[in-house]
């Protein structure tokens, strides 16, 4: 039987090539098996479903960590941990996986973000029943695990068709993630998302097949080593355009981006995080892995156009952001702008620009992932993400949330010292001196336009901050329901030890001798004053670094409830808050309780649910990594540089 003999060769081949290559396969197998187990033995897993998802994604994350740890950084340019099995000989499709300096950060990012999503989901819903885990938790865990398989597989695949298959695997889970757990107009958004991306990927498939027909192999390794030899210029251009359209839809590039705002607005928090954090990277990664190295001549011919679309995207994204009222929609449009920088970096075809693009890729994954987490948290508390209805004053009502939001926004607008900066800087720098053969004047124009775009980016983020975090909290009625306070878990942990709810409820009444009549209304005049000061602190990089260094401790402090005597509550609350609040606001916020010192419970009364434990757990790594890469970009650049140089071999 041919099948049996093939199976034999399969095993034999596997034995030979499996040396050290078990990691990529396991990275895919763990979430896949985890998902299958959910399908096969649902009853067994039902009781500990939350931990199950966490466990599986945790194992995947640990494996990814192992991958990062055992990666040979001396030869980051080459592919490591290769697996190469024949799958469909008739199509020449091989199950070929591997990691190099370009894909390693993205694999780690995927595993991290998925794990954090599970952290967010699984520890977040222990008490109140949010819309998430209560609505079909098993399906949610299943969907996320399948999504993870697709995402990691895309970054690992070294075969054109295998890449395509993984690229497509992502579609269906994402469709359901938006379509089932999404917002009000989720159906339309999900359909739009899936149709757009499928149209793109089918066109991409045609391009990939054209490459295959012309070059005779599907192996990305061999094809990129060949640097397009054997393909005529016209074929290369055609293939680059076809593949580029598919990738550009996913990225998304400016005229093809219209699915993104809808999808993001309607998607649930974890969906948005994964969509922005990882799925968009699949498009840009495709440029780095397939389009540019395989088709250098085509890339050189199309690059000016790519750059033009990229800068239009930057400006367009920024202008669109300025016009948005919805927070999630604004962040979605900001992704269009950021991806414009990434594409501009690729379009320069220089090692500098490409490095910048890859760096911006990872940074965007971290920062925008964090931003969507925050937007989800805000939407969950206020039941709207409409910025005017949020009413501002978040730094007063929920200072930690406001500070982290400030931090993320500032990181996203590209403040030097945080991760968002280096990618944009390098991309623009690459445009200053594009590769030989590209029109320099044109790219200089792009650079100028991109610089203006960066300015606009700063503008809309600052406007957003001024709308959301600053000012007086307007519309407090829905924001601070009295019964909401005992529910706010983590904060309450400390407080419950301090006093019974009854005591705390009476306290604000006694405090309402102040002119602000409602008593629920928060800020004494000090709060707005304190807020800008608080907002100022995260800019101060050492302070932010200190925050990241302290955060593990902070979570511990929050986790175990210190029972301070009731009388000293104000001080102890400040002390408890201080480590967590070092994100920004500790100094400023300390004034609030002290300002109303005679009202011990006053400050917590005023703020609504601030950051909870699970949110803190999910966000801290992102904050830490943002700061780490911002201060030490070489960490990432040293990984990508050799790989980029081999990848651009023919061009640079």
């Amino acid at each position, binding site marked *: 039987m*041919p*099948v049996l003999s*093939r199976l034999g060769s399969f095993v034999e081949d596997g034995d030979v090539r499996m040396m050290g290559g078990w990691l990529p396969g396991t990275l895919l197998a763990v979430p896949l098996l985890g998902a299958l187990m959910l*399908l*096969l033995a*649902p*009853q067994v897993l039902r009781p500990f479903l939350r931990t199950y998802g966490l466990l599986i994604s945790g194992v995947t994350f640990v494996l990814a960590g192992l991958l990062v740890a055992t990666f040979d950084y001396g030869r980051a340019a080459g592919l490591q941990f290769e697996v190469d099995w024949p*799958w*469909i*000989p*008739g*199509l*020449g499709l091989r199950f070929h996986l591997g990691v190099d300096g370009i894909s390693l950060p993205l694999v780690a990012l995927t595993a991290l973000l998925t794990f954090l999503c599970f952290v967010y989901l699984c520890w977040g819903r222990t008490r109140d029943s949010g819309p998430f885990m209560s609505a079909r938790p098993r*399906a949610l865990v299943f969907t996320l695990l*399948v999504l993870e398989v*697709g995402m990691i597989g895309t970054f690992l695949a070294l075969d054109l*068709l295998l890449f395509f*298959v993984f690229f*497509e*695997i992502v*579609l*269906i889970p994402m*469709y*359901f993630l938006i*379509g*089932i757990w999404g917002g009000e107009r989720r*159906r339309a958004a*999900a*359909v739009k998302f*899936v*149709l757009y991306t*499928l*149209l793109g990927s*089918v*066109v991409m*498939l*045609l391009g990939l*097949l*054209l490459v*295959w*027909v012309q070059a*005779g*192999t*599907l*192996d990305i390794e061999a094809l990129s080593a060949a640097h397009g030899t054997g393909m005529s210029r016209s074929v290369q251009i055609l293939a680059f355009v076809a593949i580029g359209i598919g990738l550009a839809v996913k990225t998304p590039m400016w005229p093809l981006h219209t699915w993104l705002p809808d999808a993001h607005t309607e998607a649930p928090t974890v969906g948005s995080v994964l969509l922005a954090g990882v799925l968009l990277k699949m498009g840009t990664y495709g440029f780095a892995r397939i389009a540019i190295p395989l088709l250098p001549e085509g890339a050189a011919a199309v690059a000016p156009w790519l750059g033009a679309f990229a800068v239009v995207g930057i400006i367009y994204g920024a202008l669109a952001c300025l016009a948005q009222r919805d927070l999630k929609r604004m962040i979605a449009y900001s992704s269009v702008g950021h991806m414009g920088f990434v594409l501009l970096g690729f379009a320069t075809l220089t090692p500098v620009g490409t490095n910048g693009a890859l760096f911006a890729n990872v940074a965007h994954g971290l920062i925008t992932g964090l931003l969507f987490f925050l937007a989800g948290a805000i939407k969950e508390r206020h039941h709207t993400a409409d910025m005017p209805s949020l009413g501002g004053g978040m730094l007063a009502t929920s200072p930690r949330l406001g500070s982290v939001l400030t931090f993320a926004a500032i990181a996203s607008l590209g403040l030097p010292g945080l991760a968002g900066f280096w990618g944009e800087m390098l991309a623009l720098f690459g445009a200053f001196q594009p590769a030989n053969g590209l029109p320099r004047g044109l790219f200089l124009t792009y650079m100028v336009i991109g610089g203006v775009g960066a300015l606009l980016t700063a503008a809309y983020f600052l406007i957003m901050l001024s709308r959301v975090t600053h000012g007086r909290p307007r519309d407090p009625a829905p924001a601070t329901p009295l019964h909401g306070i005992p529910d706010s878990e983590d904060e309450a942990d400390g407080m419950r030890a301090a006093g019974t709810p009854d005591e705390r409820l009476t306290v604000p009444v006694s405090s309402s001798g102040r002119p602000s009549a409602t008593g629920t209304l928060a800020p004494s005049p000090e709060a707005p004053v304190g807020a800008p000061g608080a907002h100022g602190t995260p800019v101060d990089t050492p302070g932010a670094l200190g925050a990241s260094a302290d955060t593990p401790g902070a979570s511990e402090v929050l986790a175990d409830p210190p029972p301070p005597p009731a009388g000293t509550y104000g001080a102890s609350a400040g002390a408890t808050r201080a480590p967590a609040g070092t994100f920004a606001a500790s100094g400023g916020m300390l004034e609030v309780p002290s300002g109303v010192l005679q009202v011990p419970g006053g400050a917590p009364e005023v703020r609504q649910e601030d950051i909870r434990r699970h949110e803190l757990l999910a966000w801290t790594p992102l904050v830490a990594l943002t700061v780490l890469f911002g201060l030490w970009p070489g960490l990432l650049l040293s990984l990508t540089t050799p790989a980029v140089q081999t990848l651009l071999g023919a061009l640079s």
Partner: protein
Amino acid sequence: MIQQIDYFLIAPPLVLALVAALVLLLDAFLPARPAARTALGLLTLAGVAISLAFVVAQAIRGGPPQSTFCVPPNLAGPAGQGPAMCSFVVDQFTLVFAGMVLVAAVVVVLMSMTQLAGGGIPVGEWYFLLLCTLVGAITLPASRDLVMLVVALELLSLPVFALTAMKRYDGRASEAAVKLFVVSVVSTAIMLFGVSLLYGIAGTVYLSRLAAVLSGQMPAPGVDPALTQGPPAVVTVGVVLVVAGFAFKIAAVPFHSWAADVYQGAPVPVAALLSVISKAAGFAGLILVLVVGLAGQATTWVPVVGIVAALTMTTGNLLAMRQRSAVRLLAWSSVAQSGYILAPLAIAATTAQSTTATATATAHIATATAQTTTAQTATTAAQTASATAQGIAAPATTAPLLPEAVSGAISTSMAYLVIYAAMNLGAFAVVMLMSRSSARNELDDYRGLVFRSPAAGLALAFCLVCLAGLPPGLAGLFAKVFVFRELVGGGSGWLALIMAINTVIGLYYYATWTARLFTPTPATSPSLVAAASPLPAPAASPAPAATRPSTIGAPGPTPNSAAEAPLTAEPRTPAESPTPAMATSPAPHRPPPTTWLAIGLALLVAVLFSLAPQLVLDMTSLSPFG
């Protein structure tokens, strides 16, 4: 002169014909009790299985193509040195089609057992007609002359009219039967006219001889070669008419309009039969006529096939988008899928043309004569072809004896057809299941199916995703990749682009249907009551203990009940389960165990193809026609 008939070769259709006669006899003599229905069904199933066993035996024996019903060389006329003239040839092509039809037939028979369990349909006639159709369907790919093709096609078509009308006193069914009848008769007439023109010109009905004459290899009888340059223009008319005749059978545009009404009016098993078995046979005939018989006329039919393919997929998809009825949607989607199957044939022709006419002609002569040596060269050519595809070997072998592009295109069509059969049958089987509980069978009835009946819901979801061509339905994805590869490789980029857009259109309706499966039903919705109430009934009624296992295999009505893997449903319905289920037939909405078996079988094949698409390629890529 007495002809030697190779009975082993004709065993598969022969067995089916004998069983058909047996069924008719038994139906007349067995008492009209419910047990008799089951017995007849099992007998039919056994007949199909034996026939399948013969096909498998022929496949295992392998070797060069076998033929029977040949014209002896000394009677072959003055041009006796031409290709052998055989009516019945068993080669790879025949075996793949026969095997696919018979496996599909097993599913259809299982679905029929459910359909017939409801009563109201004469059982004996049903199975007899079904078996007759199958005889036609597996004779057709083996036919190598025009008359036999027409006869097999009629044998395939005629019983289907009756099957469609078998739901007596049903207005829709009668309408469907009349529509099908009229369309089919017209198409047969058109095709016969075309066949007669071809016969008139070539003076032969054998495809091999026809190819030789039309490509100028042999002189046409009664025509002075010195006077004419090539075959006369009337050949074009003949080719177009024959293509049109087959286009009716496969419901290609512009002969597609009957599809939806007929599918909807007919009983669901008949709709499945039409969409898979009948369609497969139609494609077999089309491929045979075009590629074997009319290869020399490629200039005529290439553009026709290409345009028809593009129109078919576009029209089918656009019409499917607007449907509310599940069966109508499947009808139009299967029209669209016909377009995908047709598309590679346009490439086959283009590339066949690019090689010199003599090369193709000799190749066809060689394959038709089916000598061992040529068969071996053909095999090696195919092997080198696959080797180049793997990127292992050096650049393409130049102009081999066998037009490998042709065989590649045909095997692509066949591969798509095989995969399509599996996934479409799976979808029809679930629709069959649903038709038991909701008479109208609209898409909205499927809302929340995954919660009411996890196994059925997941099975349908998988099949739909397969049809859409997305992971995890890898079978469908790779089927489309095969076709895209042929189109891109064959330089027919425009068709590839049209197909790409169509894939997206198709995704729309498959995805919205799939999404319905996962959308919870509002508790007050009447459709939930209508659909869910029958399900708890058997469990509550004092059913015999023996039926319990089979009913448990069916969905639990609670929305929280565990989703089983689609596959686990299959082993739960053992072979003996039909008997008790049939015995207590009056319960009209009982979850029918045979349908679960059908779903399981179709799904098993679809999953298998998803994991190892190479199996399909192995089956189909080995040098058709030799």
